């Protein structure tokens, strides 16, 4: 099986990457094992928990349900890239202030999903926030604090607009 490998080139967090990967390797395993981007986590490995959520070509995807070879030519963004660019700095700050994370394992995926909602603009209701993050499992917080943090950032971003 391991001889079924393919060459791929892609952009990860702005870096051009060229690697040979096993066809069977998932995107999240590729990110973690081959690129040492350990900010993306593995939780259930079958698309339910959302812990491995990353952005591919601007859309959030499950890193465990996509193969690395499917990302040939793609642009991938992980929590490391989202942090370095400052794109989610306000969300990160709000999560820290509101203790919207405990163990932090779901947080990179949760931030990517929250940013996906907030990037649509407007101030979503608490129900809309809950609905949108319902593909991301958090065992620690009970979600209330996460909803608070996302809501606060939505309001702050809306207020900051002219």
């Amino acid at each position, binding site marked *: *099986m*391991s001889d079924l490998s393919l060459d791929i080139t892609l952009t990860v967090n702005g870096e051009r990457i060229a690697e040979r990967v*096993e066809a*069977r*390797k998932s995107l999240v395993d590729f990110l*973690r094992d081959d690129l040492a*981007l*350990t*900010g*993306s*986590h*593995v*939780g*259930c*490995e*079958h698309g*339910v*928990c959302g*812990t491995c959520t990353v952005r591919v070509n601007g859309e959030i995807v499950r890193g465990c349900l996509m193969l690395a070879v499917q990302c040939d030519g793609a642009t991938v963004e*992980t*929590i*490391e890239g989202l*942090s370095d660019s400052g794109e989610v700095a306000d969300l*990160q700050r709000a*999560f*820290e*202030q509101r*203790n919207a*994370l*405990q*163990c*932090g*394992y*779901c*947080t*990179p995926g949760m*931030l990517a999903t929250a940013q996906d909602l907030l990037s649509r603009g407007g101030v979503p209701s*608490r*129900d809309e*926030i*809950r*609905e949108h*993050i*319902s*593909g*991301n*499992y*958090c*065992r*620690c*917080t*009970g*979600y*209330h*604090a*996460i*909803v608070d943090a996302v809501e606060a950032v939505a309001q702050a971003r809306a207020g900051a607009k002219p």
Partner: protein
Amino acid sequence: MKIVEDSPPVLSVLDRPNSYIGRSVPRPNLARLTQGRGQYISDVTLPRMAHVAFVRSPHAHARIVNIATEAAKQAPGVLAVVTGPELAKVMTPWVGVLTHLKGLKSAEQSPLAIERACWQGEAVCAVVARTRAEAEDACELVDVTYEELPAVVDAETALDAKTPVIHASLGDNLCFERKLDVGAVDKAFAESDAVIETTFVTGRHTGVCNEPRAVVADWNPGEQRLTVYHATQAPHMMQDLFALHLGLEHQQVRILTKDVGGSFGIKVHTYADEMATVALSKLLKRPVKFVADRIESFVTDIHARDHRIKGKIGVMKDGTITAFEIDDLTGIGPYSVYPRTSGIEANQVVNLTGGPYQCPNYRAQARVVFTNKNVMCQYRAVGHPIAVAVTEGLVDLAAAKIGMDPLEIRRRNLIADDAYPTQSASGLKFEKLSHHEALAHLDTMMNYAALRAEQAKMRKDGIYRGIGFASFIEVTNPSAAFYGVGGARITSQDGATAKLDAQGNITVHTGVTEQGQGAEAVIAQCAATSFGVSMDRVRVVTGDTDNTPYGGGTWASRAAGIGGEAAWQAGKALRDNVLAVAGAMLQAKPEDLDIRNGIVVDKSNGTERLALNELARVAYFRPDTLPPGFQAELMATRHYVPRAWPFAFTNGIQASYLEVDTDTGFVKLLRHWCVEDCGTIINPQLVDEQIRGGVVQGIGAALFEQCLYDDRGQMLNGNMADYLVPMAVEMPDIDCGHVVSPTADSELGAKGAGEAGTAGAPACIMNAINDALRPLGAQPLTDMPFTPDKILRALGKI
């Protein structure tokens, strides 16, 4: 909180600058987690590290006839294929018993099954390869011949004569039994105006930590030392166990626990596959990594709460509860889990049932039996959700029977707030609880009367809403009474070391661990406050047996109450030592000085005398300028263990408001409230978030979570698509309130708060559902989880 002041106070310790007790300061260690820069054990890689995957039994009970490993050994990347008998030469077996649970028995367990597999998922062979994928590929080439044996899957019949005995050496399938009979139970029932009996079932469920169990073991033959990177709650306990079963000294074993992706009691036990990973590293003389995948997690992470409890309550027309009686039966899998045992949960059910109430008559029986399912052991709020469900379920049924409001019956029976110290019928000792104040606070906070009015109005429109309550008590800050007295090498004391560095900042090393609950913040808050610096000048070190005082770690809601007190005392001790140096430098009396905001000041008027960095410079680099014979001691260690009380009990009450769709059986949670009393609150935000997270974990048990097994002992839903956990959209907002009754056992007065939410939520949801359905004449639901089909059955719709 009782603070011992050390001379005429000008500023009390809570008024001084850098007073962080009772403040919601953000956790200092969060930014690395929000940036994806945490280091979980699953992230750890080491030079020459190999990966292990396990061949696991597909049968609930089977004889292992043969294991053919040749093909696997030839597979690409494979380094070793190891069976049980081979690994037994490296590591000794263990038995999960404790002497204070009299009569508790169990069988020897090994890192890999030998001769027999006793549950589906038990590891029978280990394959070590260069990558996890290669190890898994080779697992498929290991050919195990099994002879399937009859499986014991039903706890109800586990003790029947015709049921096979799982471990012949034990004689029967009874692991542990406890009986208690206090007061005059039969007389009380006979004299009651009403007696209500029913059977409760709490579904077998599990922790589903977001990060599965993970361990990297590194035996270095050159150093004759084992370093284990372990996602554990109790590093020193694991050091002891690895050393014991590998024949090593503690000095030869270092446990490093970095970030842990959730634990909840799951990561405080001995797991055979983790023991095997450590033994394999010793055998192969190189690092070996094991991370459970999700399916492995479901069939090997400890399960919990699989209980059937027959309950009985007697009540007078005026609401007086006359007696409680329970008969608890639980099937715990084929082994009592080492070293905490699988008898504790049922023991806690016996201890805690009826606990909030003033009722002198109580009879209990608990039987813990072996089955061929995955093992059960201690999971967040051990035994509490079961005892609270039984107690509060019975109290609500009694109220309904006599036509009394559920809050009123509690008001009439909860132990009076001025009755302390006192004890429960089962003998639990209570220092100070606040049931009535908590109930009154909840009544106001939720605006109970208005909700009842709304409920009545909506019923007329065919909308069925329910209000449920659950009073509870919680075991926190355990003394040696929990494990130590039973012979377990699990420490109840904990330590903290505070040291001043050469720039005048302090580092605090603590034996408690960070599982995400905020232990590092709490330790920093305590030490910063008692020492007298801002929190940004305090660094906390956890999770390293080479570099922290011996301690128990994080379990039974002990980290803040015990670890926090040790840090508080260590900060005070270091302050005294620093002021001795300052006194020598300033030719002043140390008792006339204080440290505020990192500066030595005159205590009387706050005049700044000396910055800590200058003091440290002199003490470390120019000690020659200090008076002859004076030695600066800029590191101080203090330990703390509760001594006056076996446990610091906390109390509280929860309420749920929900709506049942009587056509679909779906439950919509509208709101949830919890008022609890954990003594001195060190960080209100962290306490509230423990409550909220715990409540949702309890809601999972009430509505969604259950490990389903078929009659051959096969788990049917061992994945996250089929085993449902609470997600954001189904969860309500949760309001928290507090009453503060500090424990006098420590100076801080803090008790634990980690399990209160989980303890009370399932009962609360159950009572709210039954409250919603009562006008429809539905049979009370007592069989968790309350799935839509059960609700529709209760309504007679299917």
